[in-house]
């Protein structure tokens, strides 16, 4: 898995380095900066809702400490977003609207971690922890259900910084 990802990342970096990300047409909700090669706004990769919806996604039906009962989260896979941005590095710093941030090792992107943009089918507003929330696959790997991953589960995400 890791190798595939690295290979993908490497491919994104070298072979497809000329590939330029299309410019966002709607409101930018996510900015990926730092070690990224596919840029569209300055030296960052900016994504609007439509761009994110086009990426490989997954639906996760999970319980979280911040929601009541089982909740369906849906959104692009973290690794798909990183690949789209041509990101390569070791850690990600995920920042929220309120400037809360968490450092995430890049291996967390190898599993089915998603950047949820829909909750129970609805777009997430800022009042409902939107516009974007990092959701770990607690449904696939129950071992992740602990404080370590809770603190990494950033909501109201606005940007991701990739560090080498």
């Amino acid at each position: 898995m890791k190798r595939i990802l690295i290979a993908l990342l490497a491919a994104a970096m070298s072979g497809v380095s000329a590939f330029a990300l299309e410019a966002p047409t709607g409101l930018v909700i996510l900015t990926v900066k730092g070690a990224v090669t596919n840029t569209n706004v300055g030296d960052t990769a900016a994504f609007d809702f439509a761009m994110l919806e086009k990426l490989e996604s997954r639906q996760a039906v999970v319980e979280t400490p911040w929601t009541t009962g089982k909740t369906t989260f849906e959104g692009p896979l973290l690794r798909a977003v990183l690949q789209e941005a041509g990101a390569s590095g070791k850690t990600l710093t995920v920042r929220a609207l309120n400037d809360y941030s968490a450092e995430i090792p890049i291996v967390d992107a190898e599993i089915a971690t998603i950047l949820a943009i829909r909750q129970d089918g609805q777009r997430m507003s800022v009042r409902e922890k939107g516009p974007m929330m990092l959701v770990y696959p607690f449904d696939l790997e129950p071992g992740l259900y602990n404080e370590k991953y809770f603190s990494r589960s950033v909501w109201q995400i606005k940007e991701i910084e990739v560090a080498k």
Partner: protein
Amino acid sequence: MNQRATVKQAAGEGSVALILQILCAVLLFVLILLFVDIARQYRIMEDGVRENALWSVYQLDREVSTLEDSLADLRVQPASAKLHDELALRYDILYSRVDIVEQGKFGSYFADDQQIRGLIADMAAVVRAQQPLFDRYAAGRLPTAAELDELDTALASLALTSQDLLIHTNARLSHERADSRDLILGLERTSFVMLGLLMASVVFLVVTLNRQLRSVRETSRELEVMASQLSEAYEAADAGNRAKSQFMATMGHEIRTPLNAILGMSELLELSELPEDTLYSVKTIRSSGEALLEVINEILDFSKIEHGKLELEQRAFDVCGLAESTVSIIRGRAEDHKNTVILDLPESLNTLFVRTDPTRLRQVLLNLLSNAAKFTHDGTVTLRLREFYREGKLMIRFEVEDTGIGIDEAGLDKLFKPFSQVDASISRRYGGTGLGLTICKQIVEKLGGELGMSSTVGVGSIFWFELAVVPVSREDIKKLTATRDSEEDLPRLKILLVEDNRVNQIVATRFLARLGQDVEIANDGTEAVVLARQQKFDLVLMDMQMPVMDGIEATRRIIAERGPSAETPIIAMTANASDDDRRRCLDAGMSGFESKPVTLERLRKMIADATNPVDETVLPATADISEEAPGLPQPDLSDVMPLQVLPGLGIEGLDEARHAELVDALGEEVFQELVESFFDDATSLMVDLNQAVQKPDPEKIDRVLHTIKGAAVNVGLNEIAVKANALRGHPPSPAQVELLGEEILALKFKLVA
């Protein structure tokens, strides 16, 4: 003492086992408790997988402050659109924060605390009250100054509530942390106690195991000691047993030596002219001596069998001949009890030569027959032989049937047990060692056969045994006959007799003189060596036990000195006829071995063998029959007791075996004289008988008939003896007496040419 210790130890082991069991149960219990405890701790940890309440409340408080700051910025620059947007975003974030605190999963202490719930509800109400303002802004209408003032006031109260919530949450959390620490401490304490228990159990277990091990070592040491004591005891017992065997052998020898002298002398006495009553006494002496010898031999035989030292030989012989001669030996005894002895031989067995141990076979037959004769009065004793094939092997079945007292079932059980007789009164009435049947059974089994019996009280018994035999080919039979012929004429030898016992010297000398031999006497081994150095002898008869120098040593010297008699065959004579002795004799260089008492027949054969060596394994069968069995010298009862005969057994009314024996012992001339004198006597006796019949005088009739019978048997005229005997018991008619007289006359013409 040892036993008590063992009992104590056993009790100790029982309690130790109980303690161990309890310990194991306790250990198990402790382990279960520990597991439950660990499970509980784990559950507590599971419960702990919760969002951090304090952090959330702090975030909420912070968002309130941020919103306040943002509002303050806007009031400074009311026209800034960016600041308006910022304010709206901050409100949204606060809104989500309130949501989180309201809905999120926190510890129960947080969710269940009424005060906390109240504070949160207050805050949520205040925040939600501002929602229309921001919704309107989102729709495009800017908030008025008054509205902002109102928001400012609301936020001021919200900040206070939020602070309260933060402080209260912190206090509650500290309280909770202390509680949880207490719980963990408690758990730790319990774990510690259980661990202590566990360790104590393990220590106890180790100690107990150690003790067990020590006791096992102790026990094994005790066992070793016991084993060595046992083996010592066994050795002592074995030594005792060996001493007993040695004693038996020595006693056997010591008793047999003088007995040999007694028997030999009485045998000689019988041959001399004696008044009838003296002759009778002498015969009684001899028969008693022979009976005694039989008992001794039985005991020695039994001890030999008991020690597994019974050795068998394989010789060819005539089964019928053996049966006949055995029956003839027993006839006398049977006669004493007024029994008829019947020998039932099938034609097919006539002149059948087989190879097995004739000596032992005859021993068994004699024993069974003499038992039958002993326990039967006025009846019949039958020896029946039948041949048959089993699994392709030739088998002979020997049956001894009597019409005697019989044996009941209780008696049958005791029958084959050593030293037991059917009941105590039997041994008083009939005598005997009670070993006979045991020996018979052992011998038959050793010969590869089977011995059994059936009996009915008051009707009689049948003792039988079946033996696999090897038939001998015609060639071998011819060879035997040839050997026998060569024995007929005995050479005159110069014989050195080495014998310390004066009586034995006389016996042997007389026998040898009768056999026409020249005899030189040496009184001990030393004399023998000296004589052998001076002269050349043809044969040396060497006694084994002698003062000064024994037979073995003398033999060695004679051979070692290489004198004129160094090559002379030396034959050992001893009453101590063990296999070991036999080996020692042969080792010393002796060429033969004879057990005492030595009879004329044996001496004769020895002399014959000395000049004309015969293959030891194929000895003449018929000669064997007239011989006494080595190791079990059978009393030659035919001399003393009358014989009976069945039709077809005697040839021309003369018992061939007896004839040969007499001729062998006395020579043909003497035998002829004997026969002639018998007929002379018979003539006068017949006169007496006729007178007695006419009177009639039953007592005299019987006496005369008895005399005729005895005299007839003496010379082997068995047919006359049978007929004379048949007339006894009831007064015979004159016609019968006449018939007997004619019979005698007829034989006289046949024999006395």
